[in-house]
């Protein structure tokens, strides 16, 4: 048997290549030998191994992006026939889309003119036009989309997946959440680990910054060598073990793991987040701007085995177009369309798309009716749409998803999902299925009960599977 000291001597300074957690588990941690981030097999053969979730926070309008409704033009300016479902704010007459739709791909799927690059990959994309959620408010809808529950402290999808699958790369956080300029609303709850061990929580990065030391605070330390930091962590682990009581404490175990992760992040992160290392042609393909940079970072991360990468469009709720929808959506789509299109092409060229699930969408969609002017809320303008959880669109690509396919439909005006409705719980069940999990069996015992992402809900949408 090799003792730790031998191992260190033999490996010299190459210790970083080994999982320090496993090393320590071999000796100092003795009985607590399970590395929670060790890669694990799911319930059945997965279609996807990694996820990139492009989160259009604020709620992009499906009617102006992926769900064209000619009736909007016919009824523009008129009151909606039938009832107008209640949303967050009062809405009035039907508002037509300012954008043109064109058919793309071998199945002629219609996509709005503001997403021309995404449209080019439509044959790899399954558009879900029948999403629905529970309430027309950001906070609960964000939590529902991320954590499967609108209000209570529950683990996020990314945390569940890392809990279930472990990490492919022990030197980077397994779950990364990027948002330029600050947090989306609900902040860190969107990537919380809830009652799962803290090691499964998403690591947040403010991607408005480029330098790695600004991207990840305190990532660099010029006053101590990596070798000595390793020696510090070894001693830390030994001293912790000397003090630990007889009963294992998961919080204390997680804490040493979080130190080890932090140590490894220092070396790997700098390289992974530096998009300047990409050839110029690749950078050109993604285009300029912060969206392109963070989406390119997302590709670099999944390429390195990061399990779940969430890319938020920006702080707050940028897609929340209560007014000036045309300007808002054209701008925002303009910021990310080229990069998303490039991502799909790039992943495909690298053979990564097959096992990388790309998800696009917000927390809900928007109303076909115009939001009525209200002081302090929409600048008195009458050119935006309110939140709409009754029906909206999302799309998925790669990772075992059936490309060139449209699933479900909203009503004539796009207000409610009516055909093949897909609730957020169903989406979660489907994502877990693609990752190799039976969503009813991926559970965690907490407070005397087995919890799961989909609670008591959710059905896998088989039509979405390739």
């Amino acid at each position, binding site marked *: 048997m090799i003792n730790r000291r031998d191992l260190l001597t033999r490996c010299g300074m190459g210790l970083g290549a080994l999982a320090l957690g496993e090393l320590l588990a071999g000796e100092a941690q003795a009985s607590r030998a399970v590395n929670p981030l060790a890669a694990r097999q799911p319930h059945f053969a997965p279609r996807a191994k990694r996820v990139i979730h492009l989160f259009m926070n604020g709620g992009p309008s499906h009617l102006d992006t992926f769900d064209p409704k000619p009736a909007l033009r016919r009824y523009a300016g008129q009151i909606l026939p039938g009832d107008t479902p209640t949303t967050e704010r009062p809405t009035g007459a039907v508002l037509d889309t300012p954008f043109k739709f064109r058919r793309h791909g071998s199945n002629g799927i219609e996509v709005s003119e503001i997403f021309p690059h995404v449209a080019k990959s439509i044959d790899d994309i399954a558009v879900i036009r029948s999403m629905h959620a529970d309430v027309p408010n950001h906070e609960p809808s964000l939590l529902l989309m991320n954590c499967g529950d609108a*209000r209570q402290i529950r683990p996020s999808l990314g945390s569940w997946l890392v809990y279930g699958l472990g990490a492919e790369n022990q030197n980077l956080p397994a779950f990364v959440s990027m948002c330029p300029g600050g947090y989306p609303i609900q902040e860190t709850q969107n990537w919380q680990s809830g009652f799962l061990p803290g090691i499964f929580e998403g690591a947040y990065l403010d991607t408005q910054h480029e330098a790695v030391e600004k991207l990840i605070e305190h990532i660099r330390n010029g006053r*101590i060598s990596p070798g000595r930091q390793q020696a510090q962590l070894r001693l830390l682990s030994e001293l912790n073990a000397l003090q630990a009581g007889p*009963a294992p404490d998961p919080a204390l175990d997680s804490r040493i793991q979080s130190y080890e992760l932090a140590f490894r992040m220092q070396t790997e992160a700098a390289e992974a987040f530096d998009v300047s290392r990409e050839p110029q042609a690749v950078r050109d393909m993604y285009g300029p701007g912060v969206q392109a940079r963070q989406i390119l970072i997302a590709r670099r991360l999944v390429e390195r085995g990061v399990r779940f990468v969430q890319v938020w469009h920006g702080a707050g709720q940028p897609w929340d177009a209560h007014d000036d929808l045309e300007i808002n959506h054209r701008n925002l789509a303009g910021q990310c369309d080229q990069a998303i299109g490039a991502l799909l092409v790039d992943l495909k060229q690298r053979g990564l798309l097959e096992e990388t699930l790309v998800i696009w969408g917000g927390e809900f969609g928007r109303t076909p009716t115009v939001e009525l002017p209200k002081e302090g809320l929409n600048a008195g303008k009458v050119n935006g749409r309110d939140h709409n959880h009754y029906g909206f669109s999302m799309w998925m690509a790669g990772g075992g998803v059936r490309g060139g396919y449209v699933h479900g439909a909203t009503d004539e005006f796009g207000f409610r999902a009516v055909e093949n409705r897909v609730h957020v719980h169903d989406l979660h069940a489907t994502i877990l299925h693609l990752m190799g999990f039976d969503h009813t069996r991926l559970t965690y015992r907490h407070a005397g009960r087995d919890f799961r992402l989909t609670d008591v809900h959710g059905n896998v949408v088989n039509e979405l599977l390739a």
Partner: protein
Amino acid sequence: MLDRSPMRTCRVKRRCAYWVIVGMTLAASMQFNRQAGAAEDATRYMSAEAAEFFERTVRPALAEHCYECHSGADDDLQSELRLDTLAGLARGGAAGPAVVPGNVDESLLVSAVRYEAFEMPPAGQLPTPIADNLAKWVAMLDDGFAAAAEQLPVGESAPVQSGPHWSFVRPQAVDPPPAPAGESVGEIDRFVRAALRNANLAPAAAATPRDLLRRLHYDLTGLPPTAAETAAFEADPSDSAYEREVDRLLAAPQFGERWARFWLDLARYADTRGYVFQESRDYPNAWKYRDWVVGAFSGDMPYDKFIVAQLAGDQLEDPAVAPASGFLTLGRRFLNNPHDIIDDRIDVVTRGLLGLTVACARCHDHKYDAIPTADYYSLYGVFASSAETAREDLPPALVDKPEPVTPVVFLRGNPGMPGPSVPRGFLTCLSTDGPRPFEHGSGRLELAQAIASPDNPLTARVWVNRVWAHLAGRGLAATPSDFGVRGEPPTHPELLDWLACRFIADGWSTKALIRRIVLSRTYRQSSAPADNGSAALAENVDPENRLLWHARRKRLDLEAFRDSVLAAAGSLDLTVGGPPVSIVDDDAPPRRSLYGFIERQNLPAFFRTFDFANPNTHTAARAETLSPHQALYMLNSPLAMQAACQLAARSEAALRDGQADDPSGAGAISARAGDASFNETQARVAAMFQFALGRAATDAEIAKAAEFIAEGRDPLEDSPPTRNPWNYGWGAFDPQSQHVDFHALPHWTGDAWQGGPALPDPALGWVTWRAGGGHPGTPDHAAVLRYAAPAGGPCRIAGRLAHPAEQGDGVRLRLVSSRGSVLGEWAVHHGETLISVPDATLSAGDELYFLVDCQGGDAYDSFELSVEITATDPSAAPRVDRFADGFHGPLPPPLDRWQQLAQVLLMSNEFMYVD
């Protein structure tokens, strides 16, 4: 904790969002029907005994395990079966009657939970006792129950109740259960131990004196005890010594600081307004409110007076309470939307003081608690009748408007849809004789008095529970800001009531309450479970330690963590009060974290990383997360570096000076550290443990630490590769030896390196380096930029040298390696030239000198320089070093071994957790 069903809470939100009251009729009727969520009277359909059993046992079980699919009238209702109303239970669902009165076998409700007829709930079979209780209740029913099916509407999801909710009934001081013979314990312990005995569980042993003292210090002051204090208490851990320590800490100013911060979490305190358009972002005098709260806790202001001062201090004619209005006025500004500001005030008052989520009733009657929308607007009227006034040197105050406003209900919460008017007044559910309109001015003083009243069933309970939660790590009721129907019922209801009654009887004294709790055996028990077999059972039946069979291990919160780091470093400044200071800057002053500037809109990452309370809204309890960012902070932050250096220096000084160096470390060289058999290393390790962890190190720890100190050197220890490779100096090139003699420039101006404070420097002349360029001196005082290669391998050196001035004779750059070779030479005058060495090879530690000289005269010789050194070995770690990016002032030296060791102690679990 009970598993509250996710779907139920979803529903609440949903209704919040679009519960619509259409038409005036309904809205108007609210004035007369203020008993929203009114009780169905269960005793009409079953015996009193059955009704009581139903309310106590059956309904909570249904709520916990069944409501998520079987309540409300929503689409999500499964099998048309509602279990949240009597009628629903009596009628049953698609599969037939759920309950056949008196007939357990025929009742699907029972067979389903026994996994016979159906398998309900699908997530997992319920424990047998729950199923047995359902069966027992069914057996108690008779045909009278069937009438409920006809006579009652299936109704909204108003909860079935036979009596008022527990928290709406005034607490009754029941006598504590008797202590078993031979057990001499206080009243609190008699409640706790009776519950443990009922569950066949035993309390843990008493905590060790050291653990207990540390726990007490953190709980009361947020600071660790010094080594000397610990040693003294270990020498005399008697009850009387403990009691003296309790009293001493309660009297310390740090007590007020610690408990003020808890209150500020509830008060969503910040030093700024949140998002604003154009006005100033700061609340310049917010800190006066913070200091007032500190003073109130330090002086043990009776809690009832504390409340009145904060809600209606303007009406007390006591200038000392003037800052207290900050409780209401220092919230987020919501772009000055008056409705949202009032909503925030209603929320902070009702959740904070009453544990009620009244803000839920803004748009619709509260779906679970008896809070009709009319009540919300009765409170709304109180605040709408109050005007905010700015004051010199104080936070804004609220004063009554000359003419109070009679509020109207806003339908759906929409001010554009005014409904019927309601009087200003208190919550119906807390008004024993029916609603009484407020009569004086805005009614704010009456509101304050109605809250701060011994007759209010919630106020004392809610505060007592919060105090318990801070001390015990979990409230007796686990949802400290929700005592409504959906909140967690208390684990020890009689104890909670008893504490609340004693609290009032003690004149609402928070200190007396805390004293009572910390003197209990329950508080003083060990965090390690009893070592007698009982623990295994306890782990099974009560994994969450609701019954208090051991103390709860707690992680330090942000303030306690940072303050402890500063205390270990010996730098903590204990000044009390004053304007806020930044605690996130690299050179932040070592004030207690309470005094940190709190920017509501852009809370710095440090606050978020360590789970600070979100200052946008009332925070009932802080999260306890673990993230690699916390670890990075401790590994690499300036605070961690500085504290490690100070702790190392302290341990050295203690060794040198013996015990006298520092009064707080008087015992630092006590016991083991002063052990004559120790060598110097061992003694210093021991001293360091005393400062960092307040205790003697064990032999094993000293051995590990000494081994760490003595380990072989890491070749990169003195020049970590992450260290900035650039240095700025002057020197001259010796053509004979092909070497450069490099001297670092001695003076840093804040943005440039030069020979001294003035230019030209008498000795070094004009030599200067700044970001992007510099200036050479006389020919033997060239400006020299030094690059120390952090890694070996091939590299490409590229850059640009520019000399903008027309005058003078230009400059020359020589690129020289420390291996004694000139890699290139470039000269320029009034123009620029590109620098390129495409194929240099360096070894780690090699130095490159970029020597710029004046080529004759040093007038007009300002130059611009960019340099980029790129590693070109495709198999090595990519690396680019740029002169411009890396430009820096003085760098602190690498940590020595002792400093490294000190940092480890600050990172240890023992440092971060309190047992």
